[in-house]
């Protein structure tokens, strides 16, 4: 019935994987240790011995190198580099690593050959650091003035640039830091670590920094933005809880479902189509308190990269966006303690060197305390809180190896003990952890091996004491390898792969006692293995044309123990299948091409285009329209759920001005989405073993135009963003098979963010958001049944909530008069300054009781008088937060 296991696909993937990685190990390894004992032997014989012992090859001209000279060597377990250094010194020659060979040259030739005749190239590589904290800087700009070329540091702060031999000036820059120019004498491969110093006070670093610097600007990237954590820190926030996820709604093309929600939608994609990574480990549901706050606080975050499309080939698994978050590594030079106290929670972080200059750690924690206040009003409430803990340790093993250990745990917990029933409650828990190993094979080949895992676990606890609960989870354990070959400034090649094991509990009831008082249905757990391989190549074809192309291959294997059902066209069960543990019973293989082009009109203006295909195998199954995080479940692709796919085509115009410092971009996109999921009316989602029969599948299309104007530097910084888009879905058996607007379809999306340094100690920022109201289904008529007024619907999502708009204001007062080590400030935030009532729902089933409260009627002896109502979550919301650091 189902597709058999396709072993040939796995074989093909393995062979491709090996093929991709063979070049990585073909580079000469000068650190290899060998022993050699020769007495008065000709040089060419000694070189032969080194070749055979070290597995390397030499290239030289016999007329230039005195290969017949006789020398003596006695080396025991020395590195090839050490041996070559001795030979070079004795013969007065130099050795160079060129491609896969060691080239021997006379010293004089190297230094006197005219630039135009030079064919040898050398590589300078290293890390770019913050001089104060020792944190590596992600996306720092390296620009070679003489060649008008450059590169940027990777997510681990590493750079590598290969240049023809000669003398150059390399500029190293990073927004908010002093630019330094370093002379480069390219006569051998060298390692050069750079430390940059802050150029301005922290308050002036408020910016988003996409495309900063020449090299960064010339990256073939579109639909991408880098959001600085410091920007998030000064953005106005609900109840002072600065929030990475909610700050995304200020970016054109990204919209939130509504107030009180961390669910977001990118370019017409559904809420489960966004991959949020924290140090490479996915965070499945980054929300606290049903979504009022997110799990990601900026205090422990170093970098946030957002891809609204054009997701790099090294990432996959979601259709619409990637939010790649990197936690701080921890201060390498000194111990620092920071924290904040707000209305809802307190936060504290401690970071510092474990071994100065070699290893550091960070621990950041947050705990809410509003439950103490609520207990006074709701005695039945037993406990309510949320918490976060982020920890990280990194260790520089040597110049070529680094290790990172990251962990995150977040929890929400409520419990109550009303007089008439047992202690019950709910909890949501997120865990994520990763171990990463950075290794430089050569100064051109950089690798990162990551072992990671994450889990989202949530329960509705019906009896806390007996441990009776409905519980669901999604989890993964994964290993991935990424290799980057910085071939030359015009060409970077990446390849790698991933193996990930997923397991799903789509919601089951468990009893703490052995005797089960109620026989609840059992929903089969699901298991799957994902194997992915990719490569991407980015190269400058000419001065005006650059191209990035890549491909991601992924295989999805469903395996037992599992029970699967087959359904007929009426969605009735026709057969049941049981699979033994480990038995592979279904597979999907997908090819995801990714292509990007950049046409440079001049150094500051370019036109870019991109196409990408993305595939998604994990699906959030929920028919709720609530903005809150609820008890939804996750299901994998399988026999009854095909993988979601999307084709995204985007074209953009990008211009960077230097005076004033502005960047401007216009992007148009069209997105086709396949195997999209919707639900039959009133689908039974919980504790339903046949939940797949409630799903309906179809397509979706989204088209839009996004404009972004940013100012990155100066006392006034910020951006103006506008997006016009339209998203429709066409799902079998929904809306009479006719297309309908998606719930999250918001044609107009406008955002303005501005931060202004009034003085060196006062910063004011405002944030204004406007969005068309989201689509919903409103009744076209009503009928009566058994005293109930029942709505009748014709077209799905035929109506819209009122337009959403809100102005937020934030004022930061630096309380330090002098540049003391103890730094503290006060932030006053006012969310929804003009008290806009933004409804999250409109209903037609409420009445008023004798106390004037709006309720659902119970007494139907006489027909209740119903009226339309709307629900909104908050009006004007002031808050104050005290932050400190020392």
């Amino acid at each position, binding site marked *: 019935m189902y597709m058999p296991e396709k072993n040939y696909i796995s074989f093909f993937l393995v062979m491709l994987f090996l093929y991709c990685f063979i070049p990585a190990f073909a580079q000469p390894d000068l650190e290899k240790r060998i022993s050699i004992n020769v007495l008065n032997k000709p040089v060419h014989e000694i070189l032969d011995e080194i070749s055979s012992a070290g597995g390397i090859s030499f290239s030289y001209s016999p007329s230039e190198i005195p290969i017949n000279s006789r020398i003596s060597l006695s080396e025991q377990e020395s590195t090839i580099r050490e041996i070559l250094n001795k030979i070079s010194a004795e013969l007065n020659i130099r050795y160079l690593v060129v491609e896969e060979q060691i080239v021997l040259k006379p010293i004089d030739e190297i230094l006197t050959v005219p630039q135009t005749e030079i064919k040898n190239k050398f590589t300078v590589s290293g890390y770019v650091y913050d001089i104060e904290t020792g944190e590596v800087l992600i996306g720092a700009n390296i620009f070679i003035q003489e060649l008008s070329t450059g590169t940027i540091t990777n997510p681990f702060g590493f750079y590598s640039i290969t240049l023809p031999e000669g003398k150059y000036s390399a500029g190293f820059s990073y927004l908010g830091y002093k630019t330094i120019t370093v002379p480069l004498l390219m006569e051998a491969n060298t390692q050069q670590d750079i430390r940059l110093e802050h150029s301005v006070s922290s308050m002036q670093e408020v910016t988003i920094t996409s495309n900063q610097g020449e090299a960064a600007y010339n990256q073939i990237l579109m639909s991408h933005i880098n959001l600085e954590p410091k920007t998030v820190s000064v953005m106005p926030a609900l109840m002072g809880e600065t929030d990475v996820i909610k700050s995304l709604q200020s970016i054109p093309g990204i919209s939130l479902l509504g107030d009180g929600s961390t669910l977001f939608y990118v370019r017409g994609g559904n809420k489960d189509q966004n991959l949020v990574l924290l140090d490479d480990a996915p965070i499945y549901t980054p929300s606290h308190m049903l979504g009022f706050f997110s799990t990601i606080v900026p205090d422990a975050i170093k970098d946030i990269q957002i891809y609204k499309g054009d997701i790099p080939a090294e990432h996959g698994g979601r259709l619409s966006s990637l939010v790649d978050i990197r936690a701080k590594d921890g201060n390498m030079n000194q111990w620092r303690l920071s924290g904040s106290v707000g209305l809802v929670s307190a936060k504290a972080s401690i970071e510092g060197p474990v071994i100065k200059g070699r290893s550091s750690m960070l621990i950041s924690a947050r705990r809410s305390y509003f439950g103490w206040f609520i207990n006074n009003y709701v005695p039945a409430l037993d406990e309510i809180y949320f918490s976060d803990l982020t920890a990280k340790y990194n260790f520089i093993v040597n110049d070529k190896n680094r290790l990172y250990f990251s962990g995150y745990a977040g929890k929400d917990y409520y419990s109550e003990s009303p007089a008439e029933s047992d202690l019950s409650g709910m909890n949501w828990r997120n865990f994520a952890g990763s171990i990463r190993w950075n290794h430089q094979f050569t100064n051109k080949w950089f690798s990162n091996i990551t072992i990671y895992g994450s889990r989202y676990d949530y329960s509705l606890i019906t009896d806390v004491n007996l441990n009776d609960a409905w519980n669901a989870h999604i989890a993964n354990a994964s290993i991935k390898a990424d290799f980057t070959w910085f071939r030359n400034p015009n060409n970077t090649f990446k390849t790698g792969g991933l193996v990930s094991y997923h397991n799903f509990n789509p919601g089951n009831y468990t009893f703490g006692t052995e005797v089960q008082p109620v026989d609840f249905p059992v929903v089969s757990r699901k298991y799957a293995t994902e194997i992915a391989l990719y490569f991407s190549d980015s190269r400058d074809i000419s001065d005006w044309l650059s191209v990035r192309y890549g491909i991601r291959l992924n295989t999805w294997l469903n395996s037992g123990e599992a029970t699967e059902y087959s359904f007929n066209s009426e969605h009735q069960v026709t057969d049941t299948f049981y699979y033994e543990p480990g038995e592979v019973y279904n597979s999907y293989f997908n090819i995801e091409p990714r292509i990007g082009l950049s046409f440079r009109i001049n150094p500051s203006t370019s036109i870019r285009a991109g196409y990408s295909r993305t595939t998604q195998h994990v699906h959030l199954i929920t028919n709720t329209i609530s903005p809150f995080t609820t008890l939804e479940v996750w299901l994998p692709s399988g026999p009854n759920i095909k993988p979601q796919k999307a084709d995204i085509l985007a074209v953009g115009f990008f211009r960077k001005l230097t005076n004033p410092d502005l960047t401007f971009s216009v992007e148009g996109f069209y997105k086709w989405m396949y195997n999209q999921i919707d639900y039959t009316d*009133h689908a039974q989602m919980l504790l339903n073993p046949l939940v797949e029969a409630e799903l309906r599948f179809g397509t979706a299309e989204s088209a839009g135009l996004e404009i972004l104007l940013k100012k990155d530097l100066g006392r006034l910084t910020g951006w103006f963003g506008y997006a016009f888009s339209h998203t429709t879905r066409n799902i079998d058996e929904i809306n009479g098979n006719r297309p309908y607007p998606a719930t999250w379809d918001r044609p107009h999306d406008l955002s303005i963010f501005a931060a202004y340094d009034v003085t060196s100690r006062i910063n004011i920022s405002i944030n204004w958001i406007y969005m068309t109201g989201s689509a919903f289904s409103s009744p076209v008529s009503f009928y009566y049944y058994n005293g109930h007024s*029942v709505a009748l619907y014709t077209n799905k999502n035929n109506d819209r909530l009122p337009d959403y708009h809100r102005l937020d204001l934030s004022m930061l007062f630096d309380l330090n008069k002098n540049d003391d080590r103890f730094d503290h400030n006060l932030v006053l935030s006012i969310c929804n300054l003009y008290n806009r009532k933004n409804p999250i729902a*409109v209903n037609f089933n409420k009445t008023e009781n004798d106390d004037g409260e709006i309720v659902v009627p119970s007494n139907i002896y006489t027909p209740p008088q119903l009226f339309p109502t709307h629900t*909104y979550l908050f009006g004007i919301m002031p808050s104050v937060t005290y932050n400190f650091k020392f």
Partner: protein
Amino acid sequence: MQKILTYLLIILISGSCEEKISWDLDTRDTPLLVVEGMITNERIQHQVRLTRPVTELNAIPEPVSGAIVVIHEPESSMVLKESPSGSGIYLTDSMRAVIGKIYTLSIIIGENEFTAQTDMVPVTPLDSLEYSQADGSSNYYKLDLFDTDEPSMTEYYLDWSKLPGSANSDSCKAKIIYYSLNTVDVGEMFKPEQEQVVFPEGTVVHRRKYSMNEAHAAFIRTLLSETEWRGGLFDVQPGNVQTNLSEGAVGYFAVSTVVGDSTIILPLE
């Protein structure tokens, strides 16, 4: 749980609110047939009510008069009479439904025939009536309603109009329907706050508990999704309520076993 989360939201987001608004619906005259029909195991005249949808909240529905309404049993058929004429209410002769038979409702209006088919399952006895003191009032009580082991619908008729000092009017009468479905729905767990009906000592409570077969319970679940559960914290997508009627008619034709009792509310010990 729902109450706690509501409190939580109110306290956390002190300004949160539900307000009465005016809303211009894009209404349409939908000439659908609405059927409310039920026969039970009681030997009485049962009724089938036929109406049309309304385009405004609280509007009085137009009855569908002149229809030919027939209930078919395997061995016989019974034509219902509209009574009073023009009311859209069609009555059977005195009859009782029995377990094991399939009942088919047929409605002919002009050239259209609408049908529905169902059967009856037994009902379990009523549990004892439970009530407690109403919140904030020592002289008034409220019903404590609990789920039953099998799907059921229980009607509560409360009457305190005959008590001394009470106005002999509809304001001293109440009808509450409590559904027990045995399903797990987020919409039900976190449904919006419901009106609390309070009544004094001496109130007479008449209860009628109806059995529901699987299809009837499924229909009621969708009905509640659109009525009592709509507007809760975790609302589900709006959608049309299920029906067992053919040809695009809405509503439901049910056959139920029923048990009942009466209780006078006495002071709690």
